C-alpha cells in the first residue's frame, strides 16, 4: 500500500496516466441543458487503484466515459499518457480503446449471439492478432476469471456474475495498462461482487491502473484513493476511506 498518498512525493517519479484539465460535459436534450461535469481537474498516476464515488447523477459515469474515450468532453483537455485525446483521429481513438483501455460496464454489454470465447476474442480480432494467438489468449483470460469450463456458453446461458467475469476477461485480454469499471458489481450478488472485486484487485496488484465507480463502502475501502463527485465536480479527493460520505 502506498503510504505517501496520491499527492505524496512518491508520485512525482511515477508516470501520469490520466490528466484532466477543466473538463466539462454538457448534455443537450432539446431545449434542456444538463451540465454533467463542471471544470473537473483530475490526475491519475500509473499503478493507482482509484474508486470514484458520489450520489446518483453526480457525473461519475460521464467522467468514466470520457476517461475511456467513449465520449468527448464539451470543454477542457484530456491527456492520456501525456497525449491530448482531442487531437486524435477516429482510428487513433479506436486503437487507444483497443490496446490501452479495458472497460467493464455495469450492464456487461456482451454480444448475445457469440460464445464467451468469441466475446473475449473480439478486442483481439480488432487489434489484428492472428487466429491461434487470439484463441490462446482468450482461453487464458477466461481461465484467469475462473470460467475455463464455460468457453462455449453464450451469455444467455451464464449467470450475471459469470457474464460480468466474461466482461472482465474481455477487458484484460489485450493486457491494457488502464482498466475502467463503471459499477461492475451493481447488478451482482455479494458472492459475485467479491469475485469481480478480487479480479480487479489482482489486476491492480499486477501493476495496472484501475479506476472503479462504486457506491459501496467496502469496495471503496479496497482502493488506495477515493474521488468523491458531487454535482459534476470533484468534491473530495483523498487516499483514505475516512472521507467516505453517502
Amino acid at each position, binding site marked *: 500500500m502506498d503510504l505517501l498518498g496520491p499527492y505524496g512525493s512518491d508520485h512525482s517519479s511515477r508516470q501520469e496516466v490520466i490528466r484532466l484539465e477543466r473538463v466539462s460535459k454538457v448534455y443537450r436534450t432539446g431545449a434542456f441543458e444538463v451540465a454533467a461535469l463542471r471544470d473537473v481537474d483530475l490526475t491519475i498516476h500509473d499503478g493507482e487503484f482509484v474508486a470514484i464515488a458520489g450520489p446518483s447523477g453526480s457525473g461519475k459515469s460521464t467522467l468514466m466515459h470520457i476517461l475511456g474515450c467513449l465520449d468527448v468532453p464539451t470543454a477542457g483537455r484530456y491527456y492520456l499518457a501525456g497525449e491530448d485525446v482531442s487531437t486524435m483521429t*477516429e482510428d487513433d481513438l479506436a486503437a487507444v480503446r483497443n490496446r490501452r483501455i479495458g472497460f467493464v460496464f455495469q450492464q456487461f454489454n456482451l454480444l448475445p449471439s457469440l460464445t464467451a470465447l468469441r466475446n473475449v476474442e473480439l478486442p483481439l480480432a*480488432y487489434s489484428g492478432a492472428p487466429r491461434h494467438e487470439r484463441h490462446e489468449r482468450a482461453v487464458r483470460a477466461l481461465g484467469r476469471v475462473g470460467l475455463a469450463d464455460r468457453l462455449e456458453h453464450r451469455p444467455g446461458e451464464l449467470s450475471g456474475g459469470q457474464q460480468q467475469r466474461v466482461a472482465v476477461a474481455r477487458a484484460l485480454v489485450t493486457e491494457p495498462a488502464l482498466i475502467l469499471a463503471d459499477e461492475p458489481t451493481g447488478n451482482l450478488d455479494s458472492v459475485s461482487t467479491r469475485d469481480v472485486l478480487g479480479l480487479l484487485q489482482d489486476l491492480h496488484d499486477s501493476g495496472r491502473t484501475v479506476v472503479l465507480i462504486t457506491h459501496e463502502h467496502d469496495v471503496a475501502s479496497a482502493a488506495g484513493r477515493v474521488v468523491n463527485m458531487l454535482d459534476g465536480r470533484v468534491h473530495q479527493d483523498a487516499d483514505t476511506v475516512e472521507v467516505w460520505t453517502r
Partner: protein
Amino acid sequence: MNWLDTVKTGLDAIRSHRLRSGLTMLGILIGIAAVILTVGLGEGAQAQVRDQINSLGTNLLVVSPGSVTSGGIRGGFGSANTLTKADADALGSKMVAPDVAQVAPSTQSQGTLTVGSSNWTTSVVGTTPPWAAVRARKIDSGRFLTADDENTAAAVVVLGPTTSQQLFGAENPVGQTVTLNNVPLQVVGVLQSSGSSSGTANNDDTAVVPYSTAAQRLFGGNARTSVNAIYLSASSSGTLSAAYQEVQNELLNLHHITNSNNADFTITTQESLLTTANSVNKTLTVLLGGIAGISLLVGGIGVMNIMLVSVTERVREIGLRKALGARPRVIRRQFLVEASVLGLAGGILGALIGMIGSGVLPNFINSPVTLSPTATVGAIVIAIAIGLAFGVYPASRAARLAPIDALRTE
C-alpha cells in the same frame, strides 16, 4: 480485423438472425424473379410475332384489294373485288416489274373436304406454283403444284399438315382422293408445317389447289376472275422498295387511277408489318417493364425497411464494437459484407426462380418467355445496390457516433 474475419462476422450475423435475413432475401427474390419473368414475357411475345411475320416469306409483298384510305364509295380493306388474275399476270412481266422475282395470285374460300365418311372444313387456296416459294413453304411429302396442273386445271390438291392429319391421321395421303364441292381431287403433296411453333395454326390448316382449278371447277361467280390477294417476292431485300414502286405504278395504271391516294388496293410489306408489330410490342414491353420496375421497387423498399430496422436494432452492437476498438471502416465493411451477401443470395435465388418460372410458365399461359441476360444481371445489381445503400448507409452513420451514444440507444 482482416477480410476473412469480416466475412465470417457478417455471415455469423446473418445466421443469427435467420428470419430477418430470410425476409430480406425474400423481398429481393420476388422483385428479381418478377423482373426476369415480365421482361421475358415481353421479349418472348416480341420474338413470337417476329417469327410469325418472318414465316410468311422473305422479301414478301402482299397486294390486297380495297383501300385503307377508303374514300368515296369504295369498300373497306379487303372487301372489294378489285384485284384480278390479269393484274397478277401483268406483274409477272419482267418488263413491267423487273424487281419482282415471283408472283402468286391467290383466291381463298372456305370449303369442306370429304374422304369417305370423314370431312373437314378448311381454307381452300387457289394459287399458282410460285406460291410455295413466295410464302416460304416447303413440301413434306409428294410434290407441290406444277405449271402443268395450272395449265390443265388439274384436279389435284396439296394439303396442309393439319388438314392431312384431320382427314387421314398418320397415314400418308399422297395418291388418295378427297372430294370438294363434288369434285374429286387427287392429293399430290403435303406441306411442311410453317415452322414457328407459335400458334400459326391457320398456315398449317389449308388445302392448296391450282388457281385455274379453283376458278373454273370449284368456285363460281367472282372467283372466276378476281383474286383475294397477290403475293409477290422482291428479288432481294435491297430491291423491296423498288418492287413496291413498280407494283404500285403498274396497278394504278391498269386500274386507271392517277392519284395514288385513291388506290383501290393496298400493298403491305413484311417490313411494315414488323414495324407495326414492333411498335405494339414496345408498348407491351414498356408496360410489363413498368410493372416489373414497380415490383422491384416494392421489393427494394422492403429490403430497405428490414436493413434499416436491422441496423437500428444493432446500433448498440456497433457502439460496443467501437468501444472494444473497432475502427469505423471495419464496421462499415462488416455491414457491407452482410448487405451484399443478402443482396447477392436473394438476387441469385430470384434469378433461379425467374429462370425456372420462364421454363414452367409457357406451359400454362401459352406464351413464350425469353430470358434476358441484361435484365437478369441488371436486376441483381439493383438488388445489391439497394441492400448496400440501405444497409451500409445507416451502419456507417452509426459508426460515426461516439461509442457511448451508440451504446445508450435502446
